[in-house]
């Protein structure tokens, strides 16, 4: 069960986190280091890209331009609270724990994480609470995320520009 994890690396790179994953039945942990300066050294020996922690296989890489395949393979995604990462996981139907940057607690990314957690579609945790969040999360208890689309916005733009009237006329024309 891979769990791509970006920042907040220290919360991920610890024995307690690996223990939590094992106790919840996850078998595989995939870590993306990302742009941060912290290099995992507890779960993965420095200089190596894989390790094992009991039954948990751990893979590690610095960066990949697309996490799509990793997200698709995952049972649980742990990421920062950037909107791109959040909606990539939610629209893929994945259980998600977001960890907003604690140095930016008032910024809109933390607000988005808390808002979606309030909707019950993901869990939101501070770095220090990540282990607890993993232990407490029952992915089946998360509400499914209802994916949005641009049709409402497009219809309102059509109405504004007069295109909506044109469309009705065209439909009436087809009807005749």
């Amino acid at each position: 069960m891979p769990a791509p994890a970006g920042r907040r690396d220290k919360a991920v790179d610890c024995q307690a986190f690996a223990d939590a994953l094992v106790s919840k039945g996850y078998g595989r942990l995939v870590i993306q280091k990302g742009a941060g300066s912290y290099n995992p050294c507890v779960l993965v020996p420095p200089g190596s890209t894989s390790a094992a922690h009991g039954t948990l296989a751990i893979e590690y890489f610095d960066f990949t331009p697309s996490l799509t395949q990793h997200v698709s393979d995952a049972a649980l995604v742990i990421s920062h609270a950037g909107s791109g990462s959040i909606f990539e996981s939610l629209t893929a139907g994945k259980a998600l724990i977001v960890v907003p940057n604690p140095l930016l607690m008032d910024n809109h990314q933390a607000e988005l994480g808390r808002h979606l957690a309030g909707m019950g579609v993901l869990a939101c945790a501070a770095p220090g609470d990540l282990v607890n969040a993993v232990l407490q999360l029952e992915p089946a208890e998360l509400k499914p995320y209802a994916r949005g689309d641009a049709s409402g916005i497009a219809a309102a733009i059509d109405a504004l520009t007069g295109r909506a009237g044109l469309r009705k006329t065209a439909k009436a024309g087809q009807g005749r």
Partner: protein
Amino acid sequence: MLMMVEQLDKAHYSPRCYVVAATDRMSGTKALTKEQAWASSSSSNSTSSGSSKASGPLLEEIPRSREVGQSYLTSVATTLYSLAFAAWIVLKQRPALLLVNGPGTCIPVCAAAFLFRALLLLDCRIVYVESIARVERLSLSGKILHASRMADLLFVQWPEMAKRYKGATYAGRLY
């Protein structure tokens, strides 16, 4: 942006011109790649697509008003420059619809379109779509457009935001 254009009638909303920040190397390429995909799928679906190809999608680059870390004194000069640049693009393209989604670059373009419309030189609707990341407060671009009432439609992606900001419209989320 591309998700919205995807949903719009591309034969009606044509020709299209994308305005990107000069320092943004990704967005313009993405837009033109998407446009190519739309063009090839529409030409394979219908045999008659000659007229729309003649005026293909355009890309305009605009200098940023202010780079991160730039001093406020020189920002005044660069903002005036980007406003003049935006005005030139708007006059050249004469859009009927200006659809913007938030980066600071959109403000000089909106201001130019708003000004030309006030002078009756342009008949253009301005539509702003706030980021889905904004659940409690508008971004700076959103605040400027909301306070100045420059936008004919100001979309927010959460119903709570439409309640908080009078005049904002909620018409669903993009994601």
